[in-house]
């Protein structure tokens, strides 16, 4: 059934796409080249064809083509057009023109750095679409591609989602070039590989595959490339598209790749032998392969003292547990197994629940769902109002519900604790499956109490154990146990003991720092 759906999408999405497979050569006839472009491009208003004559004697026809919103017009006029029109002095004997223009143009006339020539019209078209200026000259079977792009972008800002108190306060932004610079600036290693590919049949978005060549495992790189090849999609808007089409198990709620907006996190992962993907237009980097424990690690852990880091890690593990199962535990204790409660607690819970009309399952569902509503509303509403809604919703709604006798105070505590716990986990994408699973755990606990709870946990564990991210076991270092990796899992050892890279992800160099001789 799934295959059919896939086929359906495949056949519909790419009906009209441009067939770029057949390469078209640049002809020496200017008109022919321009006609080709006009045939293959929709007549947009921002597309500019500018004809002019080269050189002081104005003898040779030339044409530049560009999208006027994508380029720096200043540079085009001052550096390109001016030099071509006025500065160039040409000897007009037709025989030498080819070689001469070629050499002079590149070597001496146009003072810009990014200049290449190509004989393929197809490539010229692609470059044009991605914002370069194309120059044709009558009689020369070549195009000149001038890289004078200028794109609108915002400043590098502080991380919004993965904010830390200690640590670099820079985050990725949309343009790929800035993001690459953020990484390149931090690692001056000659083995850092940045490989840019285009992805998306229509959008042709740039995608950078970044890794350190002598650390990363070749199998992993090969898998990344293979899967990139196999992606068939018309447009890629965000790195999430790549993550979703990449995953080993499409049905799993767990994120199989980590996304981050922090360059330092990306860098740390590069050093551990992982591959970082950056997509033009997306302020997030995708890190692969990923293990589950990475979602509980925050960059701060490595910058702070290891005692507090270990303590925080333990808290995060506890928070994960609470996020998934606290409401379910509450239900199974209150609706089924009173004997598991200490005596005083049992009596006070019974007193608190006295008069609540709903069974505890329904109560829990009402509260959890309204909490999820609040959370969504808080994101959609503009900043200050969002915060107000959080406070108003949380405080007033909870208070009123308790006063009205709709829910019991312990339930409010449970739900609030669960919500707080879900924010303790540093990675936003990791809390999504936990929130989903919470509801199914609640259902299981409502029917089977502790038995359902344990079965639910077993199902989650089986799923985590069977998951793999690019062939790396997702639940490592817990299953399979990697003893050496446990030092950076639910506790964090001092930096002194971190001499080896994590074993769960295969690498070429096991040691971070090779032995000095």
């Amino acid at each position: 059934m799934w295959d059919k759906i896939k086929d359906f999408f495949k056949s519909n999405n790419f009906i009209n796409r441009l067939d770029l497979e057949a390469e078209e050569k640049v002809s020496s006839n200017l008109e022919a080249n321009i006609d080709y472009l006009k045939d293959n491009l929709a007549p947009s208003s921002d597309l500019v064809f500018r004809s002019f004559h080269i050189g002081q004697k104005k003898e040779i026809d030339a044409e530049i083509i560009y999208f006027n919103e994508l380029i720096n017009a200043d540079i085009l006029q001052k550096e390109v057009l001016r030099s071509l029109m006025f500065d160039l002095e040409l000897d007009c004997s037709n025989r030498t023109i080819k070689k001469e223009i070629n050499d002079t143009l590149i070597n001496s006339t146009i003072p810009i750095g990014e200049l290449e020539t190509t004989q393929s019209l197809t490539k010229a078209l692609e470059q044009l679409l991605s914002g370069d200026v194309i120059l044709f000259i009558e009689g020369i079977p070549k195009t000149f591609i001038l890289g004078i792009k200028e794109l609108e972008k915002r400043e590098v800002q502080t991380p919004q989602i993965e904010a830390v108190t200690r640590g670099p306060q820079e985050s990725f932004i949309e343009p790929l070039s800035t993001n690459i610079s953020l990484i390149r600036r931090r690692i001056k290693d000659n083995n850092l590989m940045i490989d840019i590919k285009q992805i998306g049949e229509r959008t042709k978005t740039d995608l950078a595959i970044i890794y350190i060549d002598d650390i990363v495992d070749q199998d992993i790189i090969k898998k990344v490339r293979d899967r990139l090849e196999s992606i068939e999609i018309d447009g890629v808007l965000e790195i999430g598209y790549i993550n979703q089409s990449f995953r080993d198990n499409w049905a799993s709620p767990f994120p199989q790749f980590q996304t981050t907006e922090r360059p330092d996190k990306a860098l740390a992962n590069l050093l551990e032998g992982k591959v970082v993907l950056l997509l033009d237009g997306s302020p997030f980097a995708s890190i692969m392969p990923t293990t589950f424990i990475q979602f509980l690690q925050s960059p701060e852990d490595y910058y702070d003292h290891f005692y507090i880091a270990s303590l925080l890690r333990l808290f995060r593990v506890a928070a994960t547990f609470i996020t998934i199962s606290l409401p379910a535990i509450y239900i199974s204790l209150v609706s089924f197994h009173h004997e598991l409660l200490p005596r005083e607690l049992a009596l006070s819970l019974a007193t608190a629940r006295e008069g609540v009309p709903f069974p505890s399952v329904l109560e829990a569902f009402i509260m959890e769902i309204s909490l999820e509503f609040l959370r969504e509303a808080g994101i959609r509403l503009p900043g200050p109002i969002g915060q107000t809604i959080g406070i108003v919703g949380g405080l007033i709604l909870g208070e009123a519900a308790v006063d009205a006798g709709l829910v019991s105070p312990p339930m409010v505590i449970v739900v609030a604790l669960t919500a707080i716990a879900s924010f303790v986990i540093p990675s936003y994408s990791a809390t999504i499956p936990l929130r989903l699973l919470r509801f199914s755990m609640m259902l299981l606990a409502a029917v089977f109490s502790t038995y359902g709870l344990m079965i639910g946990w077993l199902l989650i564990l089986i799923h985590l154990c069977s998951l793999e991210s690019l062939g790396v076991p997702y639940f490592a270092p817990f299953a399979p146990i990697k003893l050496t990796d446990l030092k950076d899992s639910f506790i964090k050892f001092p930096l002194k003991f971190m001499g080896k890279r994590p074993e769960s992800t295969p690498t070429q160099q096991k040691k971070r720092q090779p032995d000095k001789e």
Partner: protein
Amino acid sequence: MQNKIKIITLLLILMLIVGCWDVSEIDRTRFPTYITFDQKADDVYRFSTKIPVLKEEAPEDVSNFRFSGPSFYSGFKDLQPRVMGKISLALLRIAIFSEAVAQEGLKPHLDTFLRDPVIPGSTLFAITPGRADEIIDIEVAPTNDIGEYLELLFNGGTDDLILLETTLNDFFISLLTTGVDPIIPLLKYGTDDMEVKGAGIFQNDRMVGQLSEKEVRALTLVKEKGLKGEIEIKVEDEIVNYYIQNNRAKIEPSSKDGRLKFQIELTLDVDIDEDTNFRRLIDSPSTIERLEEELNSNLKREIYLLFDTLQELKSDPIGLGQITRAKRFDLFDPDEWRQDFSRAEIEVDINSRIRRLGIAT
């Protein structure tokens, strides 16, 4: 194909989730904290219990129930329709038997306690002379929950050697094991309090006699290890209070002239808590020795008295039989054990050491 199977199974699971069979919401469940057992009249046992009332506006006396039936469970079943909500014995703290019931035998009542998984094994047992259901009329301070009161009385961390606690599990094990008999503390009701007064001793499940407070104290000293508690002794018409920090008893069975002989060696570490004679103990080892001597001889007398009572009643709550079986298998005869025990010779040797004197003497 594989996905279809998965979807079908998921649907099946979802269909199962329409029913909740075992739900009993905590606010719709009633938790009795104690149960009393009284002797048969007109062929039915009489029971009473108290169920804490959680609604604030409820009248005070709706929570006491008397019920009766030919057995505990049938009586309990009859109680259910009279009580709003399902009764769960999960928080049961104490079961109090009247002396008459205990003399008839506790086995018939024990079965429900063991069969039901929710009843805690740490449920306490107690015996009361007279009628057990008079407990309803007692209003103890500072709580109106007698179960909680009694639990704190036994487990509240007070150091008293006569607070012998017998739980369901202890009773069950000592009842079924040959060579040891159960013992249950004796609880006396007052008007607004309760008091532990000695203990009832058993032959199998039948109560055959009582031990006084002093005898219980001697018994716990011999039977258990690592006790803490006060012992008060009269020395020259003045009162001396010893605080027991630690005790070890060593029981060695042997045979002498065809009779069993038990050599009991008791070692005590004690502090002096009070000495009304105002003796100066610093620099006077002889006085300390004297106090030790007094304690030894007094305790020895008490233990001999205890064994007189036990041997007369042919009941062995200390488990001398078990010890004999373990240490001298040839001397132990399970069928003749009570006879052998009652004729056995007991020799007690006490060795006490005063360790601490307090900050001024």
